[in-house]
């Protein structure tokens, strides 16, 4: 697994990013509904052609942020700029931004063709051009065979494709997607994730994708903005987010993690019955340790690894791996992911590398 890789490997496999002037710039946005503050001082930049995911639990404000960019909500303070132009003062129909809605919001009284043509027709685009652009857009999402169907007569996955075509046919500078895959079943969902990602590369338009599903976010995004209670917890690439979570919340929200609350004194970290030497300053620290970074101890591994004995309390078979819950005598209890090789019993010896226990400070509870 990744445990053997040094920290710098995190950045490998990704081109060094030199950011041009951002396409969209969200500046210190605040929004409240009645007494509830939904967004507090959100600032975020999105580059041309970038696939950015806004990830968060329900109620974190992610959909509100999207609706502010689309123009369906007004911010209480702050500004939104797109390509050197102030966006938040424009009505939704004057923004070069299109949206794929959660339930697709196709027009039930119009055929697939007329749905996709809608945006072009209200812009008074010439008839022949409308026809060719609609055909192109439908071909792109493989829906050419359904031009004459009504939305009610096609499946959820097909409606999804039509909604995509309807938005992209207008050649927006930015496409917003509000949990577009949440209504699909698991298999179709995975397939659409791949298609959506390759579609985005093909059209080269920046996507802002809202989801509560961390797997989806990890699989598709160039960067993820993790929202929590109306505040940005971390904005980073999926790998950074996973291997270098900025806070304990991120560590737990993205993937599974053991949070080790330990006290450091003179370069020795103590976490209940475990202890090891480290280079952290004195004081209390929270470290994040991924379950896959703990393994069954083998003879002859690195001498500075932390080795400990623990009893297997639970074993969940998950295909290629087993997820164990192991309890050290005198604590802590840890999640451990090991290759699936059959049932494990009793007390076993485990180990992890100190370098894999990354500081992930608890953020102040709001």
């Amino acid at each position, binding site marked *: 697994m990744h445990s053997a890789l040094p920290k710098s490997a995190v950045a490998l496999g990704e081109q060094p990013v030199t950011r041009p002037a951002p396409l969209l710039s969200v500046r210190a946005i605040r929004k409240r509904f009645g007494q509830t503050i939904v967004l507090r001082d959100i600032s975020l930049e999105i580059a041309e052609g970038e696939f950015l995911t806004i990830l968060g639990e329900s109620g974190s404000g992610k959909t509100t942020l999207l609706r502010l960019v*689309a*123009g*369906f909500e007004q911010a209480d303070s702050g500004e939104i700029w797109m390509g050197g132009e102030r966006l938040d003062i424009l*009505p*939704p*129909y004057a923004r070069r*931004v*299109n*949206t794929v*809605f*959660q*339930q697709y*919001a*196709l*027009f*039930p*009284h119009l055929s697939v063709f007329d749905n996709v043509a*809608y*945006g072009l027709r*209200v*812009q008074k685009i010439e008839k022949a051009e409308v026809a060719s652009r609609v055909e192109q857009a439908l071909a792109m999402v493989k829906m050419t065979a359904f031009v004459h169907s009504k939305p009610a007569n096609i499946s959820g996955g097909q409606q999804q494709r039509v909604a995509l075509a*309807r*938005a992209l046919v*207008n050649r927006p500078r930015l496409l917003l997607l509000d949990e577009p895959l949440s209504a699909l079943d698991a298999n179709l969902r995975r397939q659409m994730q791949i298609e959506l990602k390759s579609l985005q590369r093909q059209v080269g338009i920046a996507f802002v994708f809202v989801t509560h599903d961390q797997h989806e976010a990890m699989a598709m995004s160039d960067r993820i903005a993790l929202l929590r209670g109306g505040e940005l917890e971390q904005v980073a690439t999926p790998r950074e987010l996973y291997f270098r979570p900025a806070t304990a919340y991120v560590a737990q929200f993205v993937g599974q993690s053991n949070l080790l609350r330990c006290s450091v004194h003179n370069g020795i970290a103590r976490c209940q019955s475990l202890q090891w030497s480290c280079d952290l300053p004195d004081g209390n620290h929270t470290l994040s340790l991924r379950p896959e970074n703990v393994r069954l101890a083998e003879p002859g591994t690195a001498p500075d690894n932390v080795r400990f004995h623990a009893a297997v309390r639970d074993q969940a078979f998950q295909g290629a791996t087993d997820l164990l819950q192991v309890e050290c005598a005198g604590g802590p209890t840890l999640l451990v992911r090991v290759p699936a090789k059959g049932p494990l019993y009793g007390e076993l010896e485990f180990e992890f590398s100190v370098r894999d226990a990354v500081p992930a400070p608890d953020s102040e509870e709001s």
Partner: protein
Amino acid sequence: MNAAHTRGPRWLRLYAAAVFAFLYFPILVLAVYSFNGEGVGGFPPHNLTCRWYAMLLDDSAIWSSVGNSLLVAFFAVVLALAFGIPAALALDRTSFPGKALFRRLVLLPLILPGIITGLSLLMLFVAFRMNLSLVTIALGHGTALISVATTEVFAGLQKLDRAQEEASLDLGANYWQTFWRVTVPNLKLPIIGAVLLIFTLSIDEIAVSFFLIGRNNTLPLEIWSRLRRGITPEINAISTLIFLFSLTMILVWYRLGTRGEREPRLAEELVPGAVQEG
């Protein structure tokens, strides 16, 4: 299904059939006597004939009153929609002080006895020195039936998926284009429903019309004035035709309703009789 299960429903079914018969038997009698050769007298009816219908066909007074009624109903529909649709939009889209009260007050003309609506409109027209005519009847029907348009369209708006309007704005259509291209097509069924209902209610209306009548009679008033000179089989004939017309309207309206899977409307909740009257 076992016997214990069916006994209750069977008994209930009989009862329901009896109620239905009670409602429709008088109309059946009316219809049968419109074919009675002996006029209104005599039981059982015999010498069945279509003579009364032929006579009706030649009765120019009846037909001019039918024309008047259609004219009045047409303008009542236009008037009720012109005021009812914006009222429904206001109820659905805006919030203003006293909105809940307004929602109830809009229904007032439906609940109020026609005699009071008629009398108050009469006093108003007299105060404005307007001559009573078909215009005043159309105004009266139109005002009284705004509530029907409002409640039908309001129910439609409540079911409308607002994301569709947002999608339209998102695709570059302004508010006006969105209203005509998305909102109105989605309200097609409630609007047609309102038109049918208002039309039927206006055609059958007698109380309000009675106060506002000028020189030209509407059909119900024509029938009513003839009744004072005794029932003729010709009246049975025209009444049968009115019944068939109303029945057709109700069936069309019902068909639209089942197609649109309509929710119980405000008018029905508050005035259970409002629908059957048509």
